């Protein structure tokens, strides 16, 4: 019985040592991490005033759909795209035209009618400083598909 008690005491002591050693190692590792990345609000750091640097968004026009050289089996399609916000967008197609305006996120979409066969759709966006970007899409309207 005394022998068993001794084994239990010895076992507990070793376990205690292992746990203490683990805690100590973890603490050391945490302190090392803090040393590498000192707190931003540390008083030893000089105060630097960094204001956000504005970057000018380039003037662009992206046509999301339809894809160039695609085939439509309906005579009405939606042309959608993206540009800078609140700009006039001109769409000219085979038998119609429209002027719309991009929304506050720069998105736009418009319904376009197609003629049988090849259809050319021209999309132009104008910027306030007189620049313009035009993208042309060609697609085929065929009731039968391929």
């Amino acid at each position, binding site marked *: 019985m005394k022998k068993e008690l001794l084994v239990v005491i010895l076992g507990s002591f070793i376990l205690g040592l292992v746990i203490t050693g683990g805690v100590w190692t973890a603490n050391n590792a945490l302190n090392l991490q803090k040393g590498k990345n000192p707190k*931003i*609000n540390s*008083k030893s*750091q000089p*105060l*630097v*005033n*960094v*204001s*956000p*640097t*504005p*970057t*000018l*968004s*380039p*003037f662009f026009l992206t046509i999301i759909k339809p894809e160039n*050289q*695609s*085939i439509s089996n309906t005579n009405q399609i939606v042309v959608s795209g993206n540009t*800078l*916000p*609140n700009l*006039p967008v*001109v769409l*000219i197609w*085979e*038998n119609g*035209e*429209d*002027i*719309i*305006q991009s*929304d506050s996120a720069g998105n736009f979409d418009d319904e376009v009618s197609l003629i049988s*066969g*090849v259809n*050319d759709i021209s999309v*132009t966006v*104008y*910027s*306030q*400083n*007189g*620049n*313009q970007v035009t993208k042309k899409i*060609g*697609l*085929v309207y*065929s009731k*039968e*598909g*391929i």
Partner: protein
Amino acid sequence: MQNAKCKIILGFVFLSFFVTPVLAVTSTPPLTPTSTPAENIKQKVQERINNLATESQQKAFWGTLKNITNATLILDSTDGEKRIKTDSSTAFLTTNKKAVKINDLEIGNYLIALGLWQENGNLDGKRIIVLATAPKPSLTRNALSGPITKIEKGTKIVTITKPNPNLAIKIQVGTSTIITQMVNGKITPITFDKIGVNDWVTAIGIQKTDNGILTATRIHIIPGLSNSTPTPTKSPKATPTPTE
């Protein structure tokens, strides 16, 4: 000895706690009735993916026939040279839906080829529509955009000055001209008297070659836009600001 027996029994009891759930799980029969709808959904998803892949492959090439080499049609198009591979299953049709053969094609014919796009950039031709000549281009329309510098109310002529390059252009507004403006996020028709100097106007129409006046079919107004400084939108570059 009594103590050792007790320990062994306790050991078995503890072991049974761990083993029982494992046995319970392994002894459960497979759920065959519920796996069938799951398989159906998986199959439908796969079919849809395959359909989308085929749809995205469907393309059309068009242009003037330049050459035919080994049943491959070579077209001259606005995007450059296009190649369409044909075989015995490719259908050749006139605009009147009359079937023709590849041998009936003539250099200079205008072709609209529908088929599946190949990774090498060629088209696997499925249906070819044959036109004797290229269709006439649709009516040329012009579009202009700029700030209004003058309005002649009597003649309904609006003068805009394009900022880049600095050029004054007159726009004739007629009775059939559609005038619009964005109101509460919607393109809304407005009347001519609502247009003012310094408004930003975008117009579509036909520009006369002799006097350069654009007869507008459609006008869109962005009120007072030209008063604001022409600045592209700014997106702040996130830079960390250390605080004390």
